[in-house]
C-alpha cells in the first residue's frame, strides 16, 4: 500500500469524507442555522469532477489490494452517480437547509462509491449498508407529514431483511468457495454444488429486494411516497443506479447458466408487467414513479441475460438516460406544499401555467416510456439487442411487450398537463436553483438525444 495510490485512487471518497467533516465543523462553529447547501453542492461537484478525471485518465490502481480497487469502469460509475446527485442537491433548497440532509446525503454517496470499487464481499457489504442506512433517515426527514415515519419503517424492516439475506448468501459463498473475493461469486455460479446454488440465489434475491423487483417491491411505493420530493428523486435515481452498477460488478465474468435463466428473466418480467399495470391507477406522481421504477428495475435486470461487455454498456447507458429523465421530471414538478405538489390532479393544465416545466416533464415521460427519438428508446434498444444476441429471443419479445404496457400511464400525465384546462393563473417563475437544476439535466439529455452514439462509443 502506498500513500500516493491511496490519495489518488480514493480522491472522490476523500473529498466526500472531507465534506462531511467540513459540514460538521461548520454546524458546530456557527450559532445560527445557516444554509449549507452551497457547500454541499461544491463538495458533490468536486467529487464528481475527481471521479470523471480518473475515468478520462484511464486510471487503474488498487490502494487496498483484494478489498478496494479503482478501474475506469468504477470511476465512470462514481462519476455518474455523483453527477446525478447534483440536481438533487439543487432542488433540495426549498425543503432542507440544515446540515442533516447534507451530511446524510454525503454519507450515502460515500457508501455508493465504496460499492463500485469493492473487490471483496466485505467492502461490498459495508458499501451497501453505508449507502442504505442514511437513506432510512433521509425518508424520515419529511417529518411534517405523518406517513413519512411509516414509510421509513417499512423501508428499514425490508431493507434489514435484504441485508440479512445478502449476508447469508455471502456466508454460503464463502462456505462453497472458501473465499470472500467478489470473483468467488462467479465461481459459485459456475459450480453445481447445492451450497453454491443457494448462495447465488440468496445474493440475487437480496439485490432484487434492494432494487425493488416484484415480489420484493413492497417497500418502494411507500418509501417513495413518504419521502419528500428531493429524497424521492435521490432514491429513484441514485440508489437504484448504485444497486444495479454494483450488481454488474458482482456479475463480472458470469455467463448466466441455464439453471438461473428462469430466476433472472422471469421475476424481472413479472416486475415490468406488474409495475406498469399498477402505475396506471396511481393518483400520486411519486407513487407512479415508484411503480415505474419497479418496471425499470425489471428491464435493467433483463440486461444480465446478455453477454459481458455489452451488459455493462447497456446498463450504464440505461441508468444515465433513466436517471436524467426521472430527475428532469422531479425538478420540474410545480412548487408548493410537499404533500400536495405531486398529486396528479395538481398537474392539470400545467402547460397553460408553466409551459417550460410542462414541456420538460412531457419529454421525460416520453423518454421513460421508451419512445424514439428520446434516449430512453436507445437505452431499451441496447438492452433488448444484447438479450437477443445472447439467444434469448423469446424472453426479449415478452419483455418488449411488457415494457410498452407502460405507455398508457406516461401518456396520461401528458394528457393531464396539456389537454385539461387548469386555472389560468400563471405559476411563479421557478427559483434560480430549480432552473439551474433543470438545465443540469436538460443539457446532457439533449446531448444524449442528438448524439447517443457518441456516448456509447466512449463506454
Amino acid at each position, binding site marked *: 500500500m502506498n500513500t500516493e495510490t491511496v490519495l489518488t485512487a480514493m480522491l472522490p471518497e476523500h473529498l466526500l469524507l472531507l465534506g462531511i467533516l467540513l459540514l460538521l465543523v461548520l454546524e458546530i462553529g456557527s450559532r445560527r442555522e445557516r444554509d449549507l447547501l452551497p457547500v454541499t453542492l461544491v463538495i458533490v461537484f468536486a467529487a464528481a469532477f475527481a471521479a470523471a478525471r480518473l475515468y478520462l485518465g484511464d486510471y487503474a490502481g488498487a490502494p487496498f489490494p483484494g478489498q478496494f480497487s479503482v478501474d475506469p469502469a468504477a470511476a465512470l460509475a462514481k462519476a455518474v452517480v455523483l453527477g446525478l446527485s447534483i440536481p438533487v442537491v439543487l432542488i433540495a433548497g426549498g425543503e432542507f437547509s440544515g446540515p442533516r440532509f447534507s451530511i446524510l446525503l454525503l454519507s450515502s454517496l460515500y457508501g455508493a462509491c465504496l460499492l463500485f470499487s469493492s473487490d471483496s*464481499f466485505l467492502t461490498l457489504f459495508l458499501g451497501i*449498508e453505508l449507502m442504505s442506512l442514511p437513506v432510512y433517515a433521509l425518508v424520515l426527514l419529511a417529518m411534517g407529514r405523518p406517513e413519512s415515519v*411509516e414509510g421509513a419503517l417499512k423501508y428499514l424492516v425490508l431493507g434489514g431483511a435484504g441485508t440479512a439475506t445478502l449476508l447469508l448468501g455471502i*456466508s454460503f459463498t464463502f462456505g462453497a468457495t472458501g473465499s470472500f473475493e467478489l470473483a468467488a461469486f462467479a465461481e459459485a455460479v459456475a459450480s453445481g454444488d447445492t451450497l453454491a446454488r443457494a448462495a447465488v440465489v440468496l445474493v440475487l434475491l437480496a439485490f432484487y429486494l434492494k432494487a425493488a423487483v416484484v415480489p420484493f417491491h413492497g417497500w418502494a411505493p411507500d418509501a417513495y411516497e413518504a419521502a419528500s420530493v428531493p429524497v424521492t428523486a435521490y432514491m429513484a435515481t441514485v440508489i437504484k443506479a448504485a444497486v444495479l452498477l454494483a450488481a454488474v460488478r458482482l456479475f463480472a465474468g458470469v455467463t448466466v447458466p441455464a439453471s438461473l435463466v428462469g430466476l433472472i428473466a422471469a421475476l424481472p418480467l413479472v416486475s415490468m408487467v406488474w409495475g406498469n399495470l399498477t402505475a396506471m391507477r396511481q393518483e400520486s406522481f411519486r407513487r407512479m414513479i415508484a411503480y415505474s421504477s419497479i418496471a425499470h428495475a425489471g428491464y435493467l435486470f433483463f440486461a444480465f441475460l446478455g453477454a459481458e461487455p455489452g451488459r455493462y454498456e447497456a446498463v450504464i447507458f440505461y441508468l444515465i438516460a433513466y436517471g436524467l429523465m426521472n430527475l428532469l421530471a422531479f425538478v420540474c414538478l410545480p412548487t408548493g406544499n410537499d404533500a400536495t405538489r405531486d398529486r396528479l390532479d395538481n398537474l392539470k393544465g400545467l402547460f397553460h401555467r408553466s409551459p417550460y416545466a410542462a414541456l420538460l416533464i412531457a419529454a421525460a415521460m416520453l423518454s421513460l416510456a421508451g419512445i424514439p427519438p428520446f434516449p430512453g428508446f436507445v437505452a431499451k434498444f441496447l438492452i433488448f439487442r444484447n438479450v437477443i444476441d445472447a439467444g434469448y429471443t423469446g424472453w426479449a419479445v415478452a419483455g418488449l411487450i411488457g415494457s410498452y404496457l407502460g405507455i398508457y400511464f406516461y401518456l396520461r400525465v401528458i394528457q393531464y398537463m396539456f389537454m385539461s384546462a387548469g386555472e389560468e393563473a400563471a405559476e411563479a417563475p421557478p427559483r434560480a436553483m430549480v432552473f439551474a437544476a433543470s438545465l443540469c439535466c436538460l443539457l446532457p439529455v439533449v446531448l444524449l438525444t442528438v448524439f447517443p452514439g457518441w456516448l456509447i462509443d466512449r463506454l
Partner: protein
Amino acid sequence: MDSTQLLLVLSTALFALGLTGVIVRRNLLVMLMCMELMLNGVILSLVTLSQQAASTTGAVLVFLVFVVAAAEIAIAVPIVLLLARRKHTLDGDAFTDLRG
C-alpha cells in the same frame, strides 16, 4: 451428520424463523427482533464456516455485522417510538396511511 452441517442447518433454521417472523408478526418490536434473529442466523453460519476454513476474514465480517446491526437498531427504535407516540399502539396493522 457432522457438527458443521448441523450448525449450518441450525443457522438456516434461525434465519428462516426470523424471516417468517418479519412477514407474519404484526407487532413492530417483534418484527425488529425477528430481523435481529435473521442476522444472528447469519452470524452463526459465518462463525461456523470461518472456523472450519481457519479464516480470520470471516471473523472480521462477523464484527462488521454486529456494528451494522447496532446501527440499524439505532435508527429503527426512534422510528418505532415516533410511530408509537402518534398512534399509541405497536400493532403494525394500525399503520395504513400509505396504500395503493
